[in-house]
């Protein structure tokens, strides 16, 4: 039967997923999912946060055993026991969450399990580094193989994850939201690589919440909704809107936000200089959404962390509502009314082993306390309000966040900051791994904040996001502000051009020469 | 005639003392109060009297290997004499090493079988155990359950226990219900004792064998106010022990004359170094050692009757 189908399609099926179900305490993550991927095909998986995409992929990589159903590899049923076994079968994955050891070098992380070695098991460093260089070149990365991964920006770390997956030159490559923390230009590189792999007959599962990407790279698109399979479509005979409809089961209208900026300067940075950035000066107005664009490692996060007092600034000054600020640590920043939503939710944003409610209340315990005595019921109440407001999917607010899907985790971090309600909120990759529906919700939330007079600095690597949400755009390059653009008259191309240094306006030229 | 000889010796001594002549005492658990207040105090006092440099070295924990390490490191600096606390038979080798290096070497407290040290001053732990046993037997008029507290795995205490057993052998009515390791730690000793009191209502007596057994047992007995009901014998006569005897909580103490170990030990070293008594033309050539080989300084027994004499 399957044979016939193959013939009909005229293509060989690499992996067949048949009636796979998987339940976790409290949730049915997958129920009776059937889909298959051809040899040399790019197969996109779409679905809301918590739809079960990652779970399905983790079954293919032996992280979980399915409760029901079976996997066919080249038409032969296989039981994938563990990660190592999956690697033997030629399945390799870029996990949604980081799986790097920061204490080790780029080379060691990329070739974790198959470093070149002699018969005594001694590693051949020279060879290892050569191989690493080659691999990094294919990804256009100018990083030395012996750099500690912990010293890299999150964007670069993501590229290392990709290199790691490629290093095993797999027959099946799974990319679980690979572009969540990298920028357009890296994405382009990634796509180039994918196309080449495709030619070599590698099958690629591609998970993303960015519809444009999916329609750029995928051959076929499958949709999951609450763990149920919604069908597979070839790119030609479907549309973004149809896919989204299947994902969220409701209409999403592209919102057009109009500026809420008043002409009252709330925050100003003068000649701010620190590790990874220098001479950064700018103003933000009340109710404005100011975007920072730039390539990976442009230094945007560093600027944000310096303003927030998380890292020291070596030089320069900042002022809030005209008054100069001396900020030594984040708690001072928060007291001064500045908030920062970090880009690395697992490492910097979340208390993974704690409940949703504890995470949401983390910054504002006194909101749930009377004379510094905590009322747990209050915490739950507050948490409940915000989980509803942001539509966080969870069995209860007492559930541990490490059991949540990536997107829902992101919403939990956001909730914490909404609760703190700062007058200047810096959001670093706020929709990092958030599904289209939720993304819209977050856009609305941010916009509502702006309307209510909160000033927002948006650091994002997603140009459409920047163009939808922001009022003004600062493009950073090599730790300096390359230019300032107005949302109305700019385009993605122009932003990219400045970010990558193709255009340089006179101001930056001066900076670059001296 | 003889008083001339005496003068001669006296003069010899005075003249011989040179400024960088140093006598070193090496012990383990160097900060252990009993050592500090008896052994080390007497040793220092001796040095002051003679106007001779004395040093005291050793690890602060009970760590025999470390004591050996210290001795080994000292040997290469050729001190005038070594006064070594005989903590464990395992130190025999390093003692011999010192002797072979031509350093006058005296061991105190417990003798070291197989050690070639020139002299030993101390008491027989077997004797300590025996005396305690007999005292306890008297206190119990020959019948009752008895428990043993001490540091397990230490030679001298093992000998002590043997003495205890042999003493009890004569009294079939006495039964040892168990040996307990209080790790020379007051809380442990108190802990074990009060558990014993709580769980063996018929317990008649407790024998403590390390310096902390007494105070620990005493504490538990007081808190269970079983003073006098359960008889206690222990070793050592530190202030806290004496206090407990005075309060009638400990009935019998067997103590050592530790001051004498080190005072005469040091004197022996000095006499060897200065050949104060040469018994031959050349004692070293003749293989003669001109100090006593073994000195038993004897024991002190303390109970209600004489405790007042010891309380300062």
């Amino acid at each position, binding site marked *: 039967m399957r044979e016939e189908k193959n013939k009909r399609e005229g293509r060989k099926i690499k992996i067949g997923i048949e009636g796979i179900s998987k339940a976790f305490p409290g949730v049915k993550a997958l129920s009776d999912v059937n889909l298959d991927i051809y040899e040399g095909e790019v197969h996109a998986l779409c679905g809301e946060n918590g739809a079960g995409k990652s779970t399905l992929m983790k079954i293919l990589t032996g992280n979980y055993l399915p409760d029901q159903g079976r996997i066919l590899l080249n038409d032969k049923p296989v039981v994938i026991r563990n990660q190592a076994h999956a690697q033997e079968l030629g399945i390799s994955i870029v996990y949604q969450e980081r799986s790097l050891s920061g204490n080790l070098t780029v080379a060691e992380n990329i070739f974790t399990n198959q470093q070149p070695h002699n018969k005594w098991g001694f590693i051949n460093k020279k060879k290892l580094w050569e191989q690493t260089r080659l691999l990094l070149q294919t990804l256009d990365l100018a990083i030395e193989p012996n750099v500690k991964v912990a010293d890299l920006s999150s964007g670069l770390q993501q590229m290392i994850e990709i290199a790691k997956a490629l290093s095993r030159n797999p027959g099946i490559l799974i990319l679980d939201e690979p572009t969540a923390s990298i920028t357009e230009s890296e994405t382009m590189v990634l796509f180039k690589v994918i196309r080449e792999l495709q030619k070599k007959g590698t099958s690629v599962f591609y998970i993303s919440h960015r519809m444009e990407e999916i329609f750029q790279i995928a051959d076929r698109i499958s949709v999951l909704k609450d763990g149920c399979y919604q069908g597979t479509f070839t790119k030609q005979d479907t549309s973004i809107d149809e896919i989204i409809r299947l994902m969220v089961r409701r209409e999403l209208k592209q919102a057009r936000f109009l500026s809420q900026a008043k002409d009252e300067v709330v925050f100003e940075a003068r000649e701010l200089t620190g590790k990874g950035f220098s001479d950064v000066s700018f103003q933000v107005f009340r109710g404005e959404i100011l975007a920072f664009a730039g390539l990976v490692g442009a230094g945007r996060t560093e600027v944000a962390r310096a303003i927030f007092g998380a890292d020291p600034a070596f030089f320069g000054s900042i002022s809030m509502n005209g008054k100069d600020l001396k900020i030594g640590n984040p708690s001072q920043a928060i007291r001064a009314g500045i908030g920062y939503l970090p880009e690395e939710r697992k490492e910097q944003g*979340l208390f993974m082993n704690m409940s949703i409610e504890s995470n949401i209340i983390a910054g504002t315990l006194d909101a749930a306390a009377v004379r510094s005595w905590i009322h747990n019921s209050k915490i739950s109440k507050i948490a409940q309000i915000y989980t509803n407001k942001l539509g966080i999917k969870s069995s209860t607010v007492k559930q541990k966040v490490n059991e949540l899907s990536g997107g829902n985790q992101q919403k939990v971090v956001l909730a914490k900051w909404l609760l703190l309600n700062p007058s200047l909120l810096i959001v670093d990759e706020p929709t990092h791994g958030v599904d289209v529906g939720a993304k819209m919700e977050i856009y609305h939330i941010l916009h509502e904040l702006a309307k209510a007079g909160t000033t927002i600095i948006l650091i994002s690597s997603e140009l459409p996001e920047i163009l939808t949400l922001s009022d003004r755009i600062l493009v950073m390059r090599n730790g300096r502000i390359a230019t300032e653009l107005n949302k109305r008259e700019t385009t993605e191309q122009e932003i990219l051009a400045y970010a990558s240094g193709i255009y340089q306006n006179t101001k930056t030229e001066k900076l670059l020469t001296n | 005639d003889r008083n001339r000889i005496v003068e001669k010796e006296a003069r010899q001594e005075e003249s011989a003392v040179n400024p960088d002549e140093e006598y070193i005492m090496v012990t383990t658990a160097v900060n252990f109060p009993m050592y500090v207040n008896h052994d080390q105090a007497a040793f220092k006092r001796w040095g002051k009297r003679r106007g001779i440099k004395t040093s005291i070295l050793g690890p602060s924990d009970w760590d025999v290997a470390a004591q050996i390490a210290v001795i080994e490191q000292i040997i290469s600096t050729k001190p005038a004499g070594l006064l070594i606390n005989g903590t464990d038979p395992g130190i025999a080798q390093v003692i011999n090493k010192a002797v072979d290096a031509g350093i006058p070497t005296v061991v105190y407290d417990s003798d070291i079988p197989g050690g070639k040290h020139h002299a030993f001053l101390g008491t027989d732990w077997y004797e300590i155990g025996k005396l305690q046993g007999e005292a306890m037997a008297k206190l119990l008029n020959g019948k009752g359950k008895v428990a043993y507290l001490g540091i397990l795995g230490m030679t001298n205490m093992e000998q002590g226990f043997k003495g205890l057993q042999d003493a009890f052998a004569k009294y079939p009515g006495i039964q040892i219900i168990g040996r307990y390791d209080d790790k020379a730690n007051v809380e442990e000793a108190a802990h074990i004792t009060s558990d014993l009191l709580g769980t063996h209502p018929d317990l008649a007596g407790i024998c403590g064998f390390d310096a902390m057994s007494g105070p620990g047992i005493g504490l538990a007995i007081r808190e269970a106010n079983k003073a006098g009901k359960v008889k206690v014998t222990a070793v050592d006569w530190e202030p806290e022990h004496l206090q407990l005897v005075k309060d009638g909580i400990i009935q019998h103490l067997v103590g050592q004359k530790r001051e004498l170990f080190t005072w005469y030990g040091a004197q022996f070293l000095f006499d060897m170094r200065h050949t104060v008594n040469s018994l031959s033309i050349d004692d070293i050539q003749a293989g003669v050692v001109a100090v006593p080989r073994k000195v038993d300084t004897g024991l002190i027994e303390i109970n209600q009757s004489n405790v007042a004499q010891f309380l300062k």
Partner: protein
Amino acid sequence: MKRLLRDREVSLSLSIVAICIVASVTWPNIFPTFDNISQLLLNLSIDSIVAVGMMILLISGSFDLSVGSVVAFCGGLTAYLLYYQGMFPLPAILIGLAAAGLVGLLNGYLVAKAGINPMIQTLAMMGIIRGAALMISGSGIQNLPPDFNVFGQSKFLAIQSPVWIMFVVVLIFHLLVSRNIMFRKYYYIGGNEKAAVLSGINVKKLKIIAFVLTSLLAGLAGILLASRLGAALGTSGRGMELRVITAVILGGASLSGGEGKVVGALLGTVFIGVVSNIMIIARVSGYWQDIVLGIILIAAVGMDIAFNRPAGISLKTYLRNLTIS
């Protein structure tokens, strides 16, 4: 119910109760007597008070090896002031506690601010303070004034004061840690220090406070011990650090931080206390004591883990997974 069994406090209490029942049945007129139980509690009161502080430190993700030395030091200093300076109990005690607090401040400052590894810092401090303690109390200080000894020797409702003090300390800190804003923050610090900093929690300050608290409680324990003994001994508190940390971890804390409740600390010490008490009833003596205690410790934790195995895995599969390599 299943949910309930999941936290260590409950499972540990249950196993303690179970053991006690068995013991009471086996030795009906030895174990469950009032004397035995009150003695048992008295013995673990000192450790428990120290364990409370240690629990808070472990929740915040660090620990303190110098507690044993602080016990000796604080007791010694107080005794010194009472005996040689003829001070009144209260001022002597206060000065003693202040000194203990200072030690904690030093530990906390050097760990939190200068970033010295807690292991090295507190181990070094353990040596330093032990030296100081021995210097002060020399051969031990006896005959402490009765009006100081009442503090640790008086009884209330036929139970010794240290036991009451222990209960009060545990109660107060259990409430604080579970309900108070400041103390709640230690869970965040232990859970994810980076995130705690970015959430505006003043991590360094709180860490220092935790170390100070631990030292203060150790100091209190030392003073109690001295007044129980009516004497201060320079050697007291030896080896306490590991004993206490073990009890605390047994009580649900983890060296990586973020977990544990204060009652857990008490339960941990109680568990160990009960076991060693029973061993003496059972005539387990000599070398066997440590062996048996060790085995029981491992067994207790092992079973706890087996019962809290991930849902959906049968005990059979769980055990099979253990066996196959």
